């Protein structure tokens, strides 16, 4: 078994009055792909944030790439942020910057590249994600799927160790979903990228995953390979997979 890159140990946390996780434990190993699966308000969004080292648990411990983001120094947390790419449910591209500048932004902050090298890397990443045609557009003018692909390009351009994608299906049409899936598969295969996503509906993307973490009311119901998920004896899971 390869090294554990995300370790959530009996974590409890809450965000607002609707989102919470209770006694949640999950270990993700390097190169693995895990999907947090559940309906809205099942706590998967918050669990995903904790996996990215962004949330603060009220109980339990979180370690991402060996770093406890709560107690680590500011420098250690900064180093951690550089190694974890996050794609939010909303594209979250900086609205007053072009798509190109958005994707170049993390490189300008975290990599010592010349402008020519940066340009090459950004355009290659945009082309890979299929949004190079929009490089000089502003985010407000993009369709949701294109904006999410641009956000994926921004997360991948720094070549992170872990990729976190919230609500992976949100705003993507069939072609974009295929592209999204292809990209995740390619980066995982070629670069050993660890992937953690949240999903709120059954999808062909499950085939890319090693394990599904099925969640209900902030708790982990089952953690199993996708092929076994539909057989889990739980009302939420039966509803989710349409087995009722």
């Amino acid at each position, binding site marked *: 078994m390869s090294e554990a890159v995300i370790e959530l140990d009996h974590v409890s946390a809450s965000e607002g009055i609707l989102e919470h996780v209770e006694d949640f434990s999950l270990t993700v190993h390097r190169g693995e792909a895990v999907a947090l699966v559940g309906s809205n308000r099942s706590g998967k969004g918050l669990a995903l944030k904790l996996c*990215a080292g*962004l949330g603060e648990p009220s109980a339990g411990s979180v370690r991402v790439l060996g770093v406890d983001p709560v107690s680590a120094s500011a420098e250690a*947390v*900064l*180093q*951690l*942020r*550089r190694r*974890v790419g*996050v794609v*939010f*449910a*909303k594209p*979250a*591209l*900086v*609205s*007053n910057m072009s798509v190109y500048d958005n994707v170049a*932004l*993390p490189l*300008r*902050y*975290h990599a010592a590249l010349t402008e020519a090298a940066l340009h090459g890397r950004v355009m290659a990443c945009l082309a890979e994600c299929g949004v190079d045609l929009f490089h000089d557009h502003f985010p407000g003018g993009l369709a949701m799927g294109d904006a999410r692909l641009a*956000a994926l390009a*921004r997360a991948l351009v*720094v070549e992170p160790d872990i990729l976190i994608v919230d609500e992976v299906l949100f705003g993507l049409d069939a072609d974009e979903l295929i592209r999204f899936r292809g990209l995740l598969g390619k980066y995982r295969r070629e670069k050993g990228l660890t992937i953690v996503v949240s999903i709120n509906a059954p999808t062909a993307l499950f085939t890319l995953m090693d394990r599904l973490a099925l969640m209900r009311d902030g708790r982990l119901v089952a953690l199993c390979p996708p092929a076994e998920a539909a057989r889990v004896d739980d009302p939420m899971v039966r509803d989710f997979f349409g087995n009722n």
Partner: protein
Amino acid sequence: MIAWTGKKTVEGVTYAADILFLSYLAFKELLSPARRGRHEALRGIARQILFTGVDALPIVAAIALMLGLIVIIQAGIALPQVGAGAFLANIVVVALVRELGPLLTAFIVVGRSGTAMCTELGNMKVGQEVAALEAMGISVVRFLVMPRMVGAIVAITCLTVFFDLVAVIGGFLVAKVTLTIPFLVYLGEIEQALSIADVVITVVKSALFGLTIAVICCHHGLAVVGSSTEVPQQNSRAMLNTVAACLVVDIIVSVGFYV
């Protein structure tokens, strides 16, 4: 009543501490030797100077001209009636250069740029753009607050000098229709009435106004939690608090230097 007073006092002190702390963080980022992101910060500063300073020139010129005209005509008519016609330049310097110029320029900037800063950052919070910056390990203070603060300080200082020039010279040229005092005599009197200290204090005051406006408006923009309905609420709070804070700063500087 006592509990309410205590609660409001604590809230006020906490608010002031938050604003001062954000100012400290912004200055720390400004003086930080880190080279990363300098390009983006400089671009943010240039954009802020363009929007707050250059784009505001026409409206500032119009208001300065009208205010200068009003003050000079009123003083030019009223002062000779009480045998104080020789003090026109002194009144212009005290009223326009020392007080109204910096203060009105600050109010114009609050209305134009302060609200824009607050709204922009509030919408960025709602759109998870701020969360995305944090997730990328990009300092929100370095990327969003510091450039706006520096840009506002530079822009408002230049705008105030511009306002004073237009009000004092342009206002007089327009008021000349009703006044008999020759232009060169007027300019000579202004030169005598205006000291280097007046210019320095006006510049210091303007810089402090720029700092106050940018930091308070950014603070309120970043205080939006997650709903777009919070943006106008924070915006109106930012407007009121910034105007009040500018007046407090004005009193402190005026009392500190002139009393």
